[in-house]
């Protein structure tokens, strides 16, 4: 029974070792696949970063040397109201300043009337002093 067990054990041990070896090979294969994938992803990342950096450098170099028209066709509808908006703000500001100007003009008119009244009273005083 013991021998049988030992024999079984031996046979089973051998199968187990084979199984473990096979599993190790499987692990190694999947590890290799992961490593390959990581390498590909890293390479892609490096490539993207390099391209972006290169594009930024190009952009920085271009900004200093040339001007290009922006493509606003996508925002055409949103921006088409600009003349109306500018018109509205111009009306408000010009209306406000026109009103302030008219008030200043009226104040000046009242001041000149006041000066006339002062002159009239001064002339009356002068005449009274002359009479006395």
């Amino acid at each position, binding site marked *: 029974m013991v021998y049988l067990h030992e024999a079984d054990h031996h046979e089973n041990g051998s199968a187990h070792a084979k199984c473990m070896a096979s599993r190790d090979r499987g692990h190694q294969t999947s590890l290799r696949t992961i490593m390959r994938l990581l390498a590909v992803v890293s390479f892609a990342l490096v490539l993207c970063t390099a391209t972006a950096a290169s594009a930024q450098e190009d952009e920085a170099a271009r900004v200093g040397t040339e001007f290009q028209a922006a493509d606003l066709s996508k925002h055409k509808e*949103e921006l*088409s109201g*600009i003349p109306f908006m500018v018109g*509205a703000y111009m009306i408000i500001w010009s209306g406000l300043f026109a009103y302030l100007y008219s*008030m200043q003009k009226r104040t000046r008119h*009242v001041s000149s009337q*006041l000066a006339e009244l002062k002159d*009239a009273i001064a002339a*009356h005083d002068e005449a009274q002093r002359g009479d006395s």
Partner: protein
Amino acid sequence: MKTIAFTKLNEKGTVATRQRPPAYWAAFGAAALLSLLTLGWAFFLAPVEATMGIVQKIFYFHVPGAIAMQLLFVLCGIVSFMYLLRPRAVLDRLAVSTAEVGVLMGFFALTTGPLWARKAWGHFWEWEPRLTLTLVLAFMFVAYTALRNFGGNDELTKRIAAGLAVAGIPAIYLVRVAVTWWRGTHPRVVWSGGLTDPNMRIAFWLGVASFVAIAVVLVWERMHLESARVAVDELALELMERDLLEDDF
């Protein structure tokens, strides 16, 4: 005569050249600061509206202008009613000033609104209840201002003008409820919670505050001018009665 005239002239000359009180400068500073904040918020922080685009930014000045107009006309109506009950010079001056500044605010609302409408509706004007009533209201107060500026300074003119201003109060109420009662096409955004973005709400209320502050400053200036004008008129009349001044003054 000499003493009386000089006393009055000095007293009224002081009215004409009186220094502005600190409260005036506080209102002036608030108006300037709030206007700058409104411009900044409306253009740089409030987002562009999805359907109408950038033309929607007129809203931050058009509606505050209309609100300031209504507040000033309501004040003018109340003050005029008080004047009819108990005539006092300060009430009359306040009524004249609020009516005139209210007309200016109405001009802002009635000219900027059509510019928005041209983009949103496809045409400048529509005979829609709120628009039509606002135009009628503005004309009523234009008539009031014309009456006060060209109708002389007598008590009858003042009382007729005050009656006209009181009659404007129901019209202001009708302007407010016109869209609901007669199902107008005028947008109802503010009171129905249509300002979804917080920056839109801030820009709008800053606009309202700045227009109210500007209105306060302008009304103060106009009252100051009116008191000087009335003082000079009274003095000139007195001098004419005593033959010290020619009638064509």
